[in-house]
């Protein structure tokens, strides 16, 4: 039986499958019927210092092979998270990554500081790329990324992921995040997109654009992970975007991801996401590949070896 656990100096993930921030909420609805041992980590919905109402309806618009989402960081705020949500998350048998955002580096750092040392907060993910809120944590310049990561890094000892957008500038943003002390990267967030209601000629979403996610963005996410892996051979990468089946996950690993994030797939068919790890294991076994590690970044080495 192939090994599919992912060993990292800051902890081990039982499988390479990560529930991406957002679609799984805080995991509460899923936990009633699905076994978290099938996933490596749960990333929470992004939390902020104060509660947020999020955007008005509609928040989901259909797109070819995906959707535009415009949730807008609805969340109960830090205090309610600590009081009501964290106690439930503590019992989940998987690494728990708490996603956070802030309007300023200081605000993000203050959230990180209060989470520091709490049981059930295994990793932090700093959301620097939400396409659905205006004028805050969308970091498209390296200086912004540095400032945020540094502030959060200094506020918490938790291992830290920086979640970045599919920017042209991604290699520079990644460099900034790693230099500022991020332990890893989550690539990519949803891609800015628009749909128009042709009955009236206006955008469906109140904010105009939303975040494109789902299979449509798989090739884009693969390209970005591939490019970042080439530039940063040792960074921990959670490759996220458009993965819905075992084959997609294998492509993401070969492109250079250590862990594979799934967002849209959780909305579309959660059970299939919880079956990915087992499917991956059988796939490896069928090829005599002993450790999922052998797939990671294989596309940079001319492919993997089949026994």
């Amino acid at each position: 039986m192939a090994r599919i656990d992912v060993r990292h100096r800051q902890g081990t993930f039982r499988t390479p499958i990560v529930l991406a921030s957002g679609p799984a909420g805080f995991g509460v609805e899923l936990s009633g019927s699905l076994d978290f041992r099938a996933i490596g980590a749960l990333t929470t919905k992004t939390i902020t210092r104060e509660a947020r109402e999020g955007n008005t309806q509609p928040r989901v618009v259909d797109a070819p092979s995906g959707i535009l989402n415009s949730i807008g960081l609805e969340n109960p705020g830090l205090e309610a998270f600590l009081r009501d949500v964290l106690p439930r998350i503590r019992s989940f048998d998987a690494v728990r990554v708490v996603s956070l955002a802030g309007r300023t580096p200081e605000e993000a750092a203050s959230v990180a500081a209060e989470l520091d040392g709490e049981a059930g907060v295994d990793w932090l993910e700093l959301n620097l790329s939400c396409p659905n809120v205006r004028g805050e944590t969308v970091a498209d310049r390296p200086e912004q990324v540095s400032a945020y990561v540094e502030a959060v890094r200094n506020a918490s000892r938790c291992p830290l992921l920086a979640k970045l957008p599919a920017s042209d500038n991604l290699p520079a943003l990644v460099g900034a995040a790693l230099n500022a002390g991020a332990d890893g990267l989550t690539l990519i967030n949803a891609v800015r997109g628009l749909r128009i209601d042709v009955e009236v000629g206006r955008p469906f979403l109140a904010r105009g654009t939303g975040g494109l996610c789902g299979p449509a963005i798989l090739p884009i996410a693969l390209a970005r992970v591939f490019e970042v892996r080439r530039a940063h051979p040792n960074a921990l990468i959670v490759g996220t975007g458009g993965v819905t089946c075992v084959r997609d996950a294998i492509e993401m690993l070969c492109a250079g991801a250590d862990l594979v994030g799934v967002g849209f797939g959780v909305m579309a068919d959660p059970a299939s996401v919880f079956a990915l790890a087992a499917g991956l294991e059988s796939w490896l076994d069928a090829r005599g590949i002993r450790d999922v590690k052998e797939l990671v970044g294989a596309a940079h080495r001319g492919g993997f070896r089949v026994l």
Partner: protein
Amino acid sequence: MDDKSRRHVQAAQDGPSFLVRSGSIAEAHRGGGYVRLRVDLATDLAAPQPGQFLMIRFPWGPALPRPFSTLSAQDGEIELLIKEDGLLREALAAAPCGATLEVRGPYGVPYADRIDRGRQYVLVGGGSGVAPLLHFAHAFPNLVAAMALGFRTGGARRLLPEADIAVEDETAETAEDRLHAAWQDGLGVIACGPEPLLAKVARAQRENAAAYVSLETRLGCGFGSCLGCSIPTPVGLRRICYDGPLFACSEVPWLE
């Protein structure tokens, strides 16, 4: 899809069902821009209660399944009433018998668990919104005072032999007219249908604690985790898919 093993996941018993069942279109009746489908389910499904919905797609797509209320549900067999408008619904309407569907659910709070069961109700509905109302009427005849169901045209009448529907194009009568005709103090209302109809009911019945509307929006997950269907209520944000789809008119003051 190409991953055969994804069906092998184990589901525990104490949460919503995430297993994807395979369904097969067994019978289809078309008319007036609607189609009534009978779907055989290969495996058991916790029978959807009236007001609950299933998330459905074909194996080929669309990527995100869509919610459909049941018109009836019994061992291994469900019926749906579908408006032929949109990507999946047009494909459903055009599919040959034998075509395979992927079905997960049921989700949402059954109407019967949401309402005051000490009352009788007028069921007000239009278009595909009549489906959960007919399901409810069949399951809880004692809770139903009257039906007030309307369609624009008469084409859908033969799909619904069990219903007496008002056809606006024929008699100028609407679901709302029938609600007025059947109205008596002390009754409740359950409305499901196009938003303008719901808005009229909500406006008229805001003070009636037993008046409910069944809301629709574009869902994401269908089981409460993605926050795609959040709406504001006086007591905070609520999810149409998880806390609803039925809401008291007093909970949706913005609906007008």
